[in-house]
């Protein structure tokens, strides 16, 4: 993992020249969820597992589990509320 080598405690000497990155998908380690002011709350009772919310998430933060249920990646969800808007069953609500 790149964060083992370069993280918020690294001295400047440890950064790569020009911040070049030699690993793919390092954004997974870069937690952007802390910017969120509202969070999506899932109501499993109302949800019909249609997965319409999954492709509209701009941060790919709605995951589908093995059991074919949705799950939020709260490390990267920014709370934009698009999922709540597209849900035909009002199964997602935005809460502060």
């Amino acid at each position, binding site marked *: 993992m790149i964060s083992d080598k370069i993280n*918020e405690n*690294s*001295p*400047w*000497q440890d*950064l790569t*020249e*020009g*911040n*070049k*990155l*030699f*690993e*793919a998908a*390092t954004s997974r380690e870069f937690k952007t969820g802390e910017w969120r002011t509202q969070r999506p709350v899932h109501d499993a009772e109302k949800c019909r597992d249609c997965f319409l919310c999954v492709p509209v998430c701009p941060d790919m933060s709605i995951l589908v589990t093995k059991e074919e249920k949705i799950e939020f990646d709260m490390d990267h969800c920014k709370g934009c509320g698009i999922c709540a808007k597209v849900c035909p069953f009002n199964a997602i609500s935005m809460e502060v």
Partner: protein
Amino acid sequence: MSIRERLSGNEAVAYAIKQINPDVMPAFPITPSTEIPQYVASYIANGDIDTEFIHVESEHSSMSAAIGASAAGARTLTATSSCGLALMWEELYVAASDRLPIVLALVNRALSGPININADHSDSMGARDSGWIQIYAESNQEAYDNFLQSFKIAENKDVMLPVMICQDGFITSHGVENIELVEDELVKEFAGERKPLHYLLNEKEPMAIGPYAVSNYYMESKRGQRQAMLNAKKVILSVAEEFEKISGRKYGFFEEYRMEDAEYAIVIIGSAAGTAKAAIEEIRNTTGKKVGLVKIRVFRPFPDEEIAEALKNVKAIAILDRSEMFSATGGPLGAEVTAALYRAKVQAEVVNYIYGLGGRDITTDDFHKVYEELYRMAETHEVRDNYRYIGLRE
């Protein structure tokens, strides 16, 4: 044997490009730098070199394309001038922070407004904080020699910074002078090929470049850039030493002219140094006054300790700026040299002049007057006006 020629500054730099045969040149035409890409385009059309020339729609794009090509692993350059450099502003910083060894042939001209296209240093001086190495020339010969050395400095593994090779618009860029060219074979051997350590087209090492750096990383990145600048000082001198072996011409951070015993010194950048030298000879021959000159070649990294050392024994110093920075108290060279003198505890009297804006002429008579003011300052220890003009109607 070296080749004797007569070339303009633009032709000289284009000829250096031909001899180096770099991989990629994105460029957008803007006068008078137009000639550099134009000559290179002719060399390519004639089959002299196989540089990939990219026609772009603006300087914003030429520097963007240069960044892409350099990150891909190519030896890349572009050329521009004045407002063309201004339109590159955003990308200049990106090229430096991505640590890409791009070379930019810059023809120094005024920035609008008022609208003006003549020689002064406002374009490159405005870009002095962008993280580029800046090397200036007095003559066509120096512009050519500096360009030949540029890629070796930029691509050194301890540096990896973009380099701006500057010459004065029209005076140098269009003025035809005698010049001594280095033989093609020697240039080829000296300049070599770029051997990038990390590059985007390396399929064995996937890489991302220019990532977002939040507050937790930005300062550390900038510290890294400063280190590269510090390292560049050593590399600039060692490349100059190597260059001397193939050309016989010696270069450093600056040229000291008649400074061995100088009591009164002028510090200046660019083509006006030639005029100053003529004035120095006149003064020394007629009055015997010990006058000298420090002509800055490398402005970034700024050789502050070395400049202070060169000036430590003089009584009075005039620092001449060919650009305004509107601090309302001086020009950029004045501010930095004065700070260097202060840190080194040099006690000379110092005055800052502004001259030659928008192509205003400067003559040997003007330099006589500056030295006369220095004699007065040294004698009276009084600086009448710390920020003065040469050739201003008032």
